[in-house]
Structures are given as structure tokens and as C-alpha cells.
């Protein structure tokens, strides 16, 4: 009887969630994520964090660049406020990603816990898979579908960082170095592929050059200046090019 009262909403959500789990489990991003999170677990071990701490950081932060920044900055003895600013700056990308994804997933009937969970699962891997696959699902299944993808991705990442933590001492150094390289390399190519507008392309190139330059010059809040100067400059070039047409 209660099943009938819940109606088709519940079964649509379940069907969507299970389909999302299948899509997430077979996603090509699994390989990159597992490698990345083994290296994050190993890094946490080497910097003196506990296994529980790094596992929790994966579940609640769920953003590889932010986690690398968080651990290396705390490990280097940076002030908490300084760490928070650096972590926050690395997360700005999540805002436009959520804005691009949610309107496609959400219907009038979507409940807010599911929507908030989909926002929390939003990371480059889940975002690319959900944008690609969710439009093929019926609208009322999409939030649950995206959460299924997210569950599978965050699940393997969590197990991988646990494994990386405990095997840190026996993993060969070149392997850990290679796995740590997965984060910058995968973000670089993902950004390049997602950059369709001139503003995104100029911003991507500007960020690559500006941030190491500012660090080298000893300018504080290097990531903030990289974003404001590089991003605003790129945006102005986009406006200037459009005005000329």
C-alpha cells in the first residue's frame, strides 16, 4: 500500500539511480579517479594525516585539486585562513559547473535533498558523464541518475585513497609520482576540451603562465590574482572581439 502511495516517483528515482550506478561503475573516469586517489592517499600518509582524515576529506571535499592544496598547505604549516582561501579559490569552477548541470537534471517535482546531493557530487568526472548521459534519461529520473554516477565515482575514489594510504610505503616512487601527475594532466586536458569560447581559451592559457610567475615573484594570494587578472582579461578580449563584429 505504501508503495502505491509513493507512486511512480519512487520507482522512477530507483530506476534512475540504478542506471546511474551502472553508468558510473563502467565510466572511463574510474581509471583516472582510482589512480588519482591512490596518490592522494599516499600523499596523506607521507604528510602525516590519518587514514580516516583522508577518507573523510574525499567524501566531503570531493575535488582532487582542493584536496592536494589542503594537504600540502597544512603540511607546510600555512595559517588556516590562508589554506581556506587557497582551497576556496580552487573551487570557484564548481559554481558554473553546477549552474550548467542542474537545470538539465531538475524538474518541478525534484526534492531538495536529491538536488543538493547532485550538487555535492559535481566534480569534473561526474559532471562530464552526467552532461553526456543524463539527457537520454526521462526527466524525472535524471537527478537520481546523476546521483548514481556520483555514488559509484566517489565510492571507488574513497576505497582507492584508503588503499593508497596503506600501501604508501611499498608503492614505488615513480609510480606514486605518475599517479600524482594524473590530477594536473587530467584537469588540463578536460579544461582544454571544455573551452569552446575565446574567453575560456585565453583564460586557460593565462592561468598556466600567471600562477607560477606570481608564485616565483613572491606575490601573495597568487591564485586569486591569477583568476581576477587572467579571467577578467580573457573576458574583456571576448567582449572586444564581439564588439568588432
Amino acid at each position, binding site marked *: 500500500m505504501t508503495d502505491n502511495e509513493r507512486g511512480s516517483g519512487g520507482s522512477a528515482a530507483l530506476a534512475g539511480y540504478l542506471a546511474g550506478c551502472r553508468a558510473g561503475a563502467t565510466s572511463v573516469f574510474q581509471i583516472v579517479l582510482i589512480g588519482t586517489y591512490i596518490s592522494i592517499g599516499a600523499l596523506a600518509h607521507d604528510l602525516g594525516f590519518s587514514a580516516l582524515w583522508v577518507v573523510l576529506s574525499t567524501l566531503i*571535499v570531493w575535488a582532487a585539486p582542493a584536496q592536494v592544496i589542503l594537504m600540502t598547505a597544512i603540511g607546510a604549516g600555512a595559517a588556516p585562513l590562508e589554506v581556506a582561501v587557497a582551497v576556496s579559490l580552487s573551487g570557484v569552477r564548481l559554481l558554473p559547473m553546477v549552474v550548467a548541470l542542474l537545470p538539465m537534471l531538475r524538474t518541478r517535482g525534484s526534492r531538495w535533498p536529491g538536488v543538493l546531493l547532485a550538487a*555535492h557530487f559535481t566534480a569534473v568526472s561526474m559532471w562530464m558523464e552526467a552532461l553526456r548521459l543524463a539527457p537520454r534519461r526521462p526527466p524525472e529520473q535524471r537527478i537520481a541518475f546523476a546521483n548514481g554516477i556520483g555514488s559509484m565515482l566517489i565510492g571507488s575514489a574513497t576505497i582507492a585513497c584508503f588503499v593508497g594510504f596503506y600501501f604508501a610505503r611499498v608503492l614505488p616512487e615513480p609510480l606514486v609520482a605518475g599517479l600524482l601527475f594524473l590530477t594536473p*594532466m587530467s584537469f588540463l586536458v578536460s*579544461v582544454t576540451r571544455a573551452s569552446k569560447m575565446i574567453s575560456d581559451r585565453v583564460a586557460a592559457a593565462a592561468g598556466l603562465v600567471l600562477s607560477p610567475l606570481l608564485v616565483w615573484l613572491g606575490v601573495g594570494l597568487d591564485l586569486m590574482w591569477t583568476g581576477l587578472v587572467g579571467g577578467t582579461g580573457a573576458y574583456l578580449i*571576448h567582449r572586444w572581439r564581439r564588439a568588432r563584429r
Partner: protein
Amino acid sequence: MTAGMTAELWPYLILVLVGFLPNEVWRWLGVVFSRGLDETSETLVWVRAVATAILTGVVAKIIVFAPGALGGVPLWIRLGATAIGLAAFLLMRQSVFAGVVAGTLAVMAGDIFLAR
């Protein structure tokens, strides 16, 4: 005992305060702005440009000022591997997977055969 418990919980409090909240706030703002904000709006074009510059800025920082074991690999190998990864990505019709695999194998091969 209270002092001991506080000391034990401190790393987790730090994780929530300087790890979770500063990062998650952008996702929450995304939920708020996704009601009504047009994806092609000028504000969003600017926000995306700023976010993109910061993200490639983070990428460059991790490559140039590398953490942990990656820091043990010489800088020229890290930069060369980045170029190889990007080249593979472009040659293989913008395949993210090809770029990531080529770049990562290049770092490991460079570290094993050229740096030691």
C-alpha cells in the same frame, strides 16, 4: 580529557572549516544561481573565465611546484610529460583518456630512465 579530545578532533575541525566549507560554498551558490541564471549570461561567461584561469593556475602550480613524490621528478621531465600528454590529446581527436595516459606514462618513464 577534554583537552585530549579537543586535540584529537582538531584535524577534523580544520578539515571541515578550511577544506569542506570553502569548497562546498561554490556548489551551494551554484544551486542558488541555477534558478534563473541563464547559462549564456555575461556574468557567467566572466565567472567561467575566472574559474578557468584559476584551475589552469592550480594545474601549473602542481606541475611546477610539485608535491610529494612528484617533486622528486626533475622539472624538465614534468614539463616535457605535460607537452606529450597535450600532444596525445590533440592527436587522438581530443581524447581526455589518451592525453592523461600518455602524460602519466611519460612522467613515470622519464623518472625511471632519465632521472635516476
